[in-house]
């Protein structure tokens, strides 16, 4: 499987929160040959089923990575220029001067994120970044053309290709969380060569960036026995406090209240068996990922979270290491292949046998 080519496709398509169609279609094309059945949920998430070889009723493991990216939306027109609202947490500081696409009824228009010329700024404004209300979109068109072709509500996405860096690293937009979608693809690819008894439900969820809405809905509907969510995590760089995880140094597994401790241990054991370095990501409270919504669905779902280290998150140069994606896919596949009928009985919170016996 060519991970870089797959990741390039995923990074360069345009699918912000609430408008994930292009991502769903591309991921469907990649997952269809690797799975037995696929469907689109009411909210627009993609679910692909790879059935296990066990006897019915089979246990289900859900893998969840979100396919939406942060983006913008036309909130109103100011003459020849567009003003925007956000779809997900767009960082207005990181988009200035960069190319965009405005997706209109009649196709996409190229433009740029514009700001006022320095002569138009007060001295205090010259010392800071613009806010989202202060930037505008410039399509290089007249006001009449803009009124004719653009509507309030048209979505806007950053328009930049995947960039090759040294050492099998790449930089681009939407690595959050399409790098993790690629991990799921790599896992499904590896499962072509492994036997597994459990059903695998691969979910590319929608609207994570605006409130984990896709994951919440799918966890409720699919009601899996266990779930592993995947999202990007922080790599070292200035102004990012530890804990951070260096690119290419292993795929961190999260530990904390959001995650089932026995499921955590089971995945850790798989990594040890594979002699794979597995850094631990301490997450004391909310993880800020799909795992948060999945964990409390219905009767509760044992949940884990795997991370892909990323630099410059929420910019158009999110940087990941392709080796991390390969490793994550392999770890998941091996973990899934080892799942058996007994697994759920093994991951109880406090097994009676494990209670410390009092002396005496």
């Amino acid at each position, binding site marked *: 499987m060519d991970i870089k080519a797959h990741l390039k496709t995923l990074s360069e398509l345009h699918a912000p929160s609430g408008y994930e169609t292009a991502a769903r279609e591309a991921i469907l094309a990649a997952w269809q040959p690797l799975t037995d059945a696929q469907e689109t949920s009411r909210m627009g998430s993609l679910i692909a089923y790879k059935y296990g070889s066990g006897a019915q009723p089979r246990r289900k493991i859900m893998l969840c990575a979100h396919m939406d990216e942060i983006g913008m939306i036309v909130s109103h027109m100011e003459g020849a220029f567009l003003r925007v609202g956000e779809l997900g947490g767009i960082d207005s500081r990181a988009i200035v001067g960069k190319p965009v696409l405005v997706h209109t009824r009649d196709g996409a228009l190229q433009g740029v994120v514009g700001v006022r*010329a320095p002569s138009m700024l007060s001295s205090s404004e010259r010392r800071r970044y613009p806010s989202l209300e202060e930037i505008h979109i410039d399509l290089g068109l007249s006001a009449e053309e803009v009124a004719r072709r653009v509507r309030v509500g048209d979505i806007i996405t950053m328009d*930049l290709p995947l960039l090759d860096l040294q050492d099998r690293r790449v*930089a681009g937009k939407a690595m959050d969380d399409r790098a993790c979608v690629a991990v799921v693809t790599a896992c499904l690819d590896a499962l072509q060569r492994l036997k597994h008894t459990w059903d695998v439900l691969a979910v590319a969820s929608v609207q994570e960036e605006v409130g984990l809405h896709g994951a919440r809905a799918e966890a409720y509907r699919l009601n899996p026995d266990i779930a592993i969510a995947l999202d990007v995590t922080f790599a070292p760089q200035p102004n990012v406090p530890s804990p951070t995880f260096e690119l290419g140094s292993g795929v961190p597994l999260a530990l904390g209240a959001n995650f089932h401790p026995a499921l955590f241990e089971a995945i850790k054991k798989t990594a040890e068996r594979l002699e794979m370095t597995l850094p631990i990501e301490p997450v004391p409270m909310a993880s800020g990922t799909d795992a948060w919504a999945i964990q409390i669905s219905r009767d509760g779902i044992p949940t884990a979270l795997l991370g892909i280290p990323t630099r410059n998150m929420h*910019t158009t140069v999110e940087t990941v290491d392709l080796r991390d994606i390969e490793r994550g896919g392999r770890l998941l596949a091996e973990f899934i292949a080892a799942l058996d009928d007994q697994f759920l009985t093994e991951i109880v919170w406090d097994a009676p046998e494990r209670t410390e016996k009092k002396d005496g």
Partner: protein
Amino acid sequence: MAELLSLRETLKKLSEAIGVSGEERQVRQALLELTKDRLEDVVIDTMGNLTARLKGGQANALRVMLSAPMDEIGLMVSGSENFLSVLPVGRLDMRYVAAARVLIGAQKLNGVVLFAPIHKTYGQDELPEPKSILIDTGGKNSAKVGERVAFVGNYAELSADVVRGKAFQSRAACAVLVRLIEMLAQAPLPLDVYVAFTAQARIYGRGATVAANRLKPQIAFLLDGAECDDLPRPEGDTQLPTVRLGGGTVLRAAEEMGIPDQRLLTYVRNIAESQGLPYQIDISEAYGTENANISQTQTGVPSVSLSVPVRYMSSPNGLVSLADLEHTQRLLHAALTALTPKLLEN
């Protein structure tokens, strides 16, 4: 015979070329390839300026210099460990630097400017100092100290007229001059015309100083870019724009470093009026041109700037109107056509 490119193609080629102030080699080479068949006495001088005389010039005619800056703002590698540390070359607008894509050195190695994620820096909106810029190439020790770093633009035609791209302040001016050279070669004027594609304009215009010293023109016409201010203002700010995209050639009535020659300014303005060519008068002092360098060299050279309006001029993705470029080319050509030594009489 150099392939004759259209204005559009010329602009794209020059915009995408690399030439950070002090290391203009690549763009200089591109300019030479585009113009060498029309030039003689080609010299690349000690500053890196590309100067030459137009073939067919008349020896005793009025000695005219036409100039356009070649260089672009950028960075220079100052340290190389995990990430590259850099220093600014030229005056950066730091609003455009966050998460930018760059090309390092002559080998054009890919790099990205680090930017801390919003999750960890929420609410921090102060612009950083240029010296805090760090570049990630993916590898370690990947560049040598002193190598220049250029920003990457995303060249695109937004419409039949408006183009998006990098370094238009210099390269749009160069494109106009390249096309004008071709125009003059087809129909020579009774002048002795020298052209100077100047280096280091973004370092206080020092290349232009040396070019003027060497060429000793009697009159100089400078091409450049001018920052547009026809952008949305906050409510309550009722100032009208002075420089509009598509509003025609910008003539500066005042500048940061001095006042242009009033005879020449009036002359060019009158030509524009009589030819029905659009023009705009700019009095903003935010950016100067090389006018001061040229006009104050040695015994002084009467000079005037004709600038192409550029939106987001310090950005890797500025906007120009091709109509503005064409009008500027025609205006300068008309000004040269009607030029006589009488103009310099007081």
